[in-house]
């Protein structure tokens, strides 16, 4: 089972112009660029029946922001990793393929400022307060300090 599945995954990864890396037994990582992401994920979901998206992780990697989609299928865990530049954090939404991704994308948007085009709720806030100042950097970036955020939010509250 696992052998065939591995080969099938490999075919999908090569089709999207990338490689499949086996991290551990039953754990795979696929690095893919933004262009091919949607194609790869729709192939995973529709052809290989990998339908359960566990979550989406956003990472601050210095120059770039990494977005990891964690899938699980029976015993295998598949991570699909993509990068967006920090100067222009725009990613493609996968809500069309996986409707359950909507809140995870909102979370990454709130916490790291990545905009997902195609997500219908991108203009709403999910976790941050409504009074969050627009000019403050997203909280999970390495450059934003909790003490500064706290000070700023306190000032906002006092000015009201």
């Amino acid at each position, binding site marked *: 089972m696992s052998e065939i599945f591995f080969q099938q995954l490999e075919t999908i990864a090569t089709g999207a112009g990338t490689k499949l890396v086996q991290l551990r037994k039953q754990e795979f990582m696929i690095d893919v660029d933004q262009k091919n992401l949607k194609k790869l994920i729709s192939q995973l979901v529709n052809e290989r029946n990998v339908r*359960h998206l566990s*979550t989406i992780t956003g990472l601050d990697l210095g120059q770039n922001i990494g977005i990891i989609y964690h899938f699980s299928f029976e015993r295998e*865990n598949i991570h699909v990793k993509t990068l967006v530049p920090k100067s222009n954090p725009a990613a493609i939404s996968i809500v069309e393929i996986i*409707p*359950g991704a*909507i*809140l995870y994308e909102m979370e990454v948007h709130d916490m790291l400022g990545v905009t997902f085009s195609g997500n219908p709720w991108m203009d*709403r806030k999910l976790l941050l307060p409504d009074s969050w100042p627009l000019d403050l950097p997203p909280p999970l970036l390495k450059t934003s300090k*909790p003490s500064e955020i706290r000070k700023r939010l306190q000032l906002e509250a006092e000015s009201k």
Partner: protein
Amino acid sequence: MTETSSTPMRREESAGLMEYSVENLVPFGPIHPALKEPEYFKLVLEGEKIVQVIPRIGYVHRGLEKAAEMRPWVQNMYMFERTCGICSFVHSLCYGQAVEELTIYQVPKRAKYIRVIIAELERIHSHLLWVGLMGHWAGFETLFMWVWRDREIILDLVEEISGNRVHKSMNAICGVRRDMPDNMENRIVEKMKFIADRARYYRQIIDTEQTMLERTEKIGKISADTAEKLCAVGPMARYVGLRHDVRLNDPYAAYDEIPFDIVTRKEGDVHALLRLRLDELIVAANIVSYAVQHLPAGPVRVKIPPIIPAGEHASHCEAPRGEIYYFVRSTGGRTPDRVKSRQPTMANLPTALEILKGQTIADVPMVLTAIDPCFGCMDRMAFLDTETNRHWTWSGEELRQYGINYYRKRKK
């Protein structure tokens, strides 16, 4: 209290009303003084039916992921345990497993079994708490009292093993902090037998008692396909027939050595959820008995250095409410570079919103409790009827009474 809270609430309402000017909009939450956490839902009504639900979570977002980046690896374990007051152990277990994979050390076998025992005791206590709450919201107080009395047995056992009732603080990276007390084996097996018997009795009650049947049957329906598309986890996936359980699919701790089978139901309504969780109680009680009787000898902990090698690892566990997910990234320092934690309620929220569509206001407490949420914002529900321009507020107690009266009237 009404005056201070109504001002910001009104502003939110008007923002929502612009989108849905013809229908009725019901803000649900976020203030709740007694139960769990506050969350906020905007319910758009058409007459009495709910047509759209807009979530607004984050009222208790404490920035744990950011805080984790500034704390040592070990401290984080006990910080993440404070994520939840009901399923606290499984958070530290999942975080610990993610970190352990980055090190070269192996968790001792005895520690793995102790982890299973605590995790399953926690599942029993969480499910019992939930069954009690379901009884409360349906107006069946006797069930609530009985079930919460039985829950005390579990809490006492947990206290005896770990020293704490709620935040067990049992886990350490690569092991557990305390060994099992001596001479507890027979007592635990006996108590587990009692819990399983009670679960069978409660199952008989909910199948025959008219109050429960009327409030739960054919309510909160969803198809298996939709639940799968919305990435439902835990009991919310199993009650429509999906075999989704991390304990079985991707065994962690000692679950690969313990014989058990997961429970699934086909019906996909609130009643199926009740049956499912009561059946899971029996399974969990059996797992605890087996683990206690087959507890291997040996050390319970390996001491590790404070620096974790660089790498990335993700780990998932089956919490009482479903799959819980941790992703850890280390750059080889004393603190993590990034810790991502995803709780089951977050994963089940899209499914819950889908289920709420088409339900009546009277069923809102039942359906929202049915998903076993980590938010209990039943108090302070404000109603706004745009056609008659009437505005009124219900407390959780009034809402509960409304639900009970609604069904009483319908019966006549």
